[in-house]
């Protein structure tokens, strides 16, 4: 019997919903990790993964709504989630602070996601085990 100690994970997602499987695999992994008693200290969205934090994604009603499913999971387990600001701004994912800074017409980030810098990822690397979910393309 393998001896499994409890872990603290940071989940990094770089694949976008509806163009890669990454958000689904990552969510199933995260659910299983929490169910096994491990801790997820944060979720970090990078590159195309930032689209998971969009409040404006509308899949057909009979398809899984990955941004909503992720939001619900994060809220339920009180896991902080951050989208990288450099990735987010280039892809049109904006919070109210960036909306003001760049004088944009709207903001579109879905709670509880927040926008922050790669410093969050660097810090995660010093205190938790990082697991990445990339696009398969």
């Amino acid at each position, binding site marked *: 019997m393998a001896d499994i100690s409890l872990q603290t994970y940071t989940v990094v997602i770089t694949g976008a919903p509806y163009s890669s499987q990454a958000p689904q695999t990552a969510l199933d992994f995260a659910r299983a990790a929490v169910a096994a008693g491990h801790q997820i200290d944060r979720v970090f969205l990078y590159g195309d993964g930032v689209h998971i934090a969009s409040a404006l994604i509308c899949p057909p009603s009979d398809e899984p709504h990955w941004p909503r499913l992720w939001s619900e999971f994060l809220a339920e387990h009180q896991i902080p989630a951050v989208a990288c*600001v*450099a990735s987010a701004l280039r892809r049109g994912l904006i919070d109210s602070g960036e909306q003001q*800074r*760049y*004088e944009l017409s709207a903001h579109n980030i879905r709670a509880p996601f927040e926008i922050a*810098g*790669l*410093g969050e990822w*660097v810090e995660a690397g010093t205190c938790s085990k990082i697991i990445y979910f990339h696009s398969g393309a």
Partner: protein
Amino acid sequence: MINTPTRNNEGFLEDAHSWTPQIAEQIAADNGLELSPAHWEIVQFLRDFYQQHAMSPPSNRLFVKAVKEALGEDKGNSIYLMQLFSGTPAKSACRVAGLPRPTNCL
């Protein structure tokens, strides 16, 4: 009074190529800053850095590191740079040097 080219709401030039030393002085004046030779040394360093690497130092920490690498420890430290360029030195100095706002993704 010279005509400054378009600047964004944070005072950064929209086009780094439209920069001249006169424009630097005006941007500095708008921020309550009079440029001394010590300021100019940093501004010139940033112009050269941009010329060579096609970017602004992305964050304040990396700005300090780059100055240290080029001009030594006496100038490449955040206290010295904050005395010259108040607030966030990378941001203030890039503004005067006509460079894009540091992505500051840190």
